[in-house]
């Protein structure tokens, strides 16, 4: 159950983190 829990959070977390990183990269242009 624990492995499944970690796996499921990783599966949804990776795309979300990728999206947040891409957005932050873009947002930094505001302060340049």
């Amino acid at each position, binding site marked *: *159950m*624990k492995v*499944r*829990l970690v796996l*499921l*959070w990783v*599966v*949804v*977390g990776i*795309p*979300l983190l*990728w*999206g*947040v990183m*891409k*957005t*932050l990269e*873009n*947002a*930094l*242009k*505001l*302060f*340049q």
Partner: protein
Amino acid sequence: MASSFLDRQNTVAPPGFDRFLVPPAALAVHLSIGQAYAFSTFNLPLTRLIGHSHSAPADWDLKQVGWIFSIAIVFLGSSAAVFGRWVETAGPRKSMFTAALCFSGGFIVSAFGVHLHQLWLLYLGYGVLGGCGLGIGYISPVSTLIKWFPDRPGMATGMAIMGFGGGALIAAPLSVMLMAHFKTALSNGVLETLVTMGVIYFMFMMIGVTAVRVPAADWKPAGWSAPAHPKQLVTTAQVAVDMAWRTPQFWLLWVVLCMNVTAGIGVLGQASPMIQEIFSGRVTPAAAAGFVGLLSLFNMGGRIIWASTSDYIGRRNTYMVFFLLGILLYSTVPTLGHLGSIPLFVAAFCVILSMYGGGFATIPAYLRDIFGTYQVGAIHGRLLTAWSVAGVLGPVLVNYIRQYQIDNGVPKAQAYSVTMYIMCGLLLIGFLCNFAMRAVDEKYHYRGSVQS
């Protein structure tokens, strides 16, 4: 076989099931349907399907293409209202599966529309079919999460609804990357991107479909028992959906949501031109895009932070903060523009957008407090019609008043001031409705047996 897998009775969790498996299942659905916020990335390419690098005379114009998103939002609200009760009876797995079929199907039908260059197929595909997927998908995990987390309903629904805000952060760069990947001399890659995204989102939503479970009828968190003396405005009674919308509380909450969303959605849609016009010559288009990205991040973060906070300070107090702080910030924005302070201007709008997201994420738990858990998903569905109205009202207020001001000789940099004060007025209406909230009269309470 397939229908039995989807049936509610086959999704009841076995003893020892970890309830923290349910939020990522809900997130898988909300991260997918949150793509809707990034649909504008397709707008320009859709106007260049024939001309490729420029718009040819036979190409669609931006106004025609803009209707795709508007139809989707209208169908989001109406399908959530119409299918809300079915979602409650069918259970989360069947409704998430239906949402996946509709949402992904919307992409495929739209791809056909691009292939045949028939705009009505995009209205029907992404607008109607996709919009129904948005509405059903949005409400499908809500009541399940509330039942799994009776001790922290705000945090639980906040996690899922955060996904709807986060979906745009993924979809915007993903669709740009895919269009660049599929671009050829004869195509700008829209058709292939729509098909690819339809397939990707179907598979991603299926993760949620297979992982979601409902708690057993007698289940409660280990070591937790319902408080003997619930907090003020937290009911232990149940109200059915058909009765709920006859109560004044439903309509007070409808106005509360509508005013909160109107105040945020108009700004979100006009954020890029607004900051460039207010700080003319000081903010480049690239920097303005960064501002939009920052607002999206706060829109997403506000959902989990404010909804979780509401578990401690109460739903009504959370909305009091939204409205009072919103009035304060909106009324100071014109001054910040005159002072030329970009950091303070950006900070003010980041907080405003965090409260816009927070409003969406806190409302399911507010409904649960007022109407109980019995048909909270269906009641939530009907309340989302407020979103459809706000989706029209917000942009109209910002765009039309700005244009009216400019037509009457007001400089572009000051054309938003009146809109900001009107937003304050709308937030004041929301504040008064929230202030008037009381417990539901006993005559509306449901007397029958309540299924888990």
